[in-house]
C-alpha cells in the first residue's frame, strides 16, 4: 500500500516538477514571478481538451496541442504583460502585479467560455493498461507520464546547455545589456523562453487533466501555490532543484491524502517549506544547484 502511494506520489510530483520548471525558467532569466503561470497551464489543458472533444485527436496530439497552446498563450502574456514593463525598465515588482492582473483576465475568460463547468477528457483518451509488478499496480499512463517528464527535462537541459539557443538564453539571463552588445536579440530569446515555459505548463496541464480526470478554469491556482514551494525548496532558478522538490511535494501530498486527510496536504507542504527555510534559507539544493542554474546577476 505504501509503495503504491509512493508510486502515485512520484507520478503527480513529476508533473508538479514540469509545471514548476516553466515557472523557474522565467524567474531565472527575467526575475519575473509569473503569477499567470497557473492560468497558462489551465489554458494549455483546455487547448488539449478541446482538441480531443472537437476533433477527436489521440493522446499524443492532445499533448502536442496542449504544449503549443500553452506556449502561445505564454508568448502573448509576455507581449502584453511583461514586455512593455521591460522596455521601460520598470522594477521587478511591477511585473508581479501585472501578471496577477493578466492571470485574473485569463481565468475569467476561461470561466465565461466554459460556463464554470468542470470538464473531463473522454474515458478512452488513454487505454487502461495495468501491469502487476511485485504486488504493485502500475498503469501504463503512469509510466508514460514519468517517461514524458523525464524526456522533457533531459530535452530542456540539452537545449539550455548544449545548443546555441540555450547559450543565448543563459547569456541574456546573466546580462541583457552585454548580450545586446554582442548582437543577441533579446526579443527572440524571450520569445523562446516564454514559449518553452508555456509549453511545459501546457503539457503538465493536459497530464494533470487526465490523471485527476478534471479540467476547469481554477485548476492552475493550487499548482501555482505549490510551484512557489517547489522553486523555493529547490533553490530559485535551479532546474534539478525544481524537479526534486516537485517530486518531494507530490509524494508528501499523496501520502498525506492517503494516510492522514486530504485537508492536511497543503498545510503539511507549507510547514515543510517553513522548516526547510529555517534550516537552509537557500533551499534544499542551495549552491549545488547553482551549476545548472539560469540566473541573472
Amino acid at each position, binding site marked *: 500500500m505504501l509503495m503504491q502511494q509512493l508510486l502515485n506520489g512520484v507520478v503527480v510530483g513529476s508533473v508538479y516538477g514540469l509545471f514548476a520548471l516553466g515557472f523557474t525558467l522565467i524567474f531565472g532569466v527575467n526575475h519575473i514571478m509569473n503569477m499567470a503561470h497557473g492560468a497558462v497551464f489551465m489554458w494549455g489543458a483546455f487547448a488539449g481538451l478541446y482538441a480531443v472533444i472537437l476533433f477527436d485527436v489521440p493522446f499524443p496530439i492532445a499533448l502536442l496541442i496542449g504544449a503549443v497552446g500553452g506556449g502561445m498563450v505564454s508568448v502573448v502574456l509576455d507581449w502584453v504583460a511583461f514586455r512593455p514593463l521591460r522596455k521601460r525598465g520598470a522594477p521587478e515588482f511591477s511585473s508581479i502585479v501585472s501578471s496577477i492582473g493578466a492571470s485574473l483576465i485569463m481565468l475569467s475568460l476561461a470561466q465565461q467560455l466554459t460556463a464554470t463547468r468542470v470538464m473531463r477528457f473522454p474515458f478512452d483518451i488513454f487505454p487502461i493498461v495495468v501491469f502487476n509488478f511485485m504486488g504493485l499496480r502500475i498503469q501504463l499512463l503512469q509510466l508514460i507520464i514519468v517517461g514524458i517528464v523525464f524526456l522533457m527535462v533531459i530535452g530542456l537541459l540539452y537545449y539550455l546547455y548544449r545548443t546555441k539557443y540555450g*547559450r543565448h538564453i*543563459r*547569456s541574456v539571463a*546573466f*546580462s541583457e545589456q552585454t*548580450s*545586446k552588445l*554582442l548582437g543577441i536579440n*533579446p526579443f527572440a530569446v524571450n520569445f523562446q523562453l516564454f514559449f518553452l515555459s508555456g509549453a511545459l505548463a501546457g503539457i503538465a496541464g493536459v497530464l494533470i487533466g487526465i490523471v485527476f480526470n478534471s479540467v476547469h478554469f481554477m485548476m492552475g491556482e493550487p499548482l501555482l501555490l505549490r510551484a512557489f514551494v517547489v522553486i523555493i525548496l529547490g533553490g530559485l532558478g535551479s532546474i534539478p532543484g525544481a524537479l526534486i522538490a516537485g517530486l518531494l511535494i507530490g509524494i508528501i501530498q499523496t501520502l498525506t491524502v492517503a494516510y492522514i486527510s486530504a485537508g492536511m496536504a497543503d498545510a503539511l507542504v507549507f510547514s515543510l517549506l517553513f522548516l526547510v527555510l529555517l534550516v537552509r534559507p537557500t533551499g534544499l539544493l542551495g549552491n549545488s544547484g547553482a551549476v545548472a542554474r539560469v540566473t541573472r546577476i
Partner: protein
Amino acid sequence: MLTIENLAVAYKGIMALRGVSLSVAKGEIFTLIGPNGAGKSTMLNAASGIVPAMSGRILFDGEPIQGRAAHLIARAGLIQVPEGRRVISPLTVAENLALGREAAGRRGSEASDIDEVYELFPILAERRNQLSGQLSGGQQQMLAIGRALMGKPRILLLDEPSLGLAPVIVREVFDALIRLNRGGLTILLVEQNAKLALQTAHNAAVIEQGRIVHQGAASDLIDDPVVADHYFGRAEVMA
C-alpha cells in the same frame, strides 16, 4: 568609418553629452580620453544603441544608425567591449567565444577563427573549458576582447580596457590591440590612462563634462602642455 555629429545625450534630464562631434577613420586607432564622469562610456553606449541619442547624428559607414536596435548595430559590425569586462561568467571561455561568433549572425566568423583568438591570447586556449567567472581580471579582459573579435567587427569599441589591470597585463592587452590594428581593424578606444592611450592611438579627443575640449593627432596631444598638466600627473600616480 564612424562619424558622430553634435551628439547630445541626457539621463532623465541631466545632460551627459552636450554636442559631441568626432570622426574615426577606417584603419586607425582613435582614443577618447577624459576624467571620471566626462561622458566617455555614454558616447560608446550611444553609438552601440543602448542609450538613446537626444539629438545629433551617428553615422556608421555613412549610414545613420541612431534609433536602431542595439543587437542590429552589433550585427552590422560595430561591436563594443564594455567597461568592467562583463564576460558571461556562468559560461566557459570557449562558450563565451562561441557566443560572440553566433550572436553576430551571418556576419560572424567561422568556427575555426577561434584559433586566431587563441593565438592572440594563448592563455585563453589553456583555460578554454574553465568557467569564465573564474578567470583573473586580465584574462577576463582578454576574453571580452576575443569574444568581440569572434563577431568580426568592422570597428571595435573598447571602454577602459586597462581598468584595474596590472601594468604587465595592460601592456599585453595593448600590444594585442596594436597587432589587431596593424591587421586592419579600426578601433575606438576609451581610456582614463591618457598617456598609454595617446601612445597607442593615431588620433585623439579629450572630453570633459560632455564636451570635446581638445582634438588632434595623438602625438600632438602628448606634447600639449595643457593636456599633460591635466592628465599625465594623475595617470602616472595611478599607474
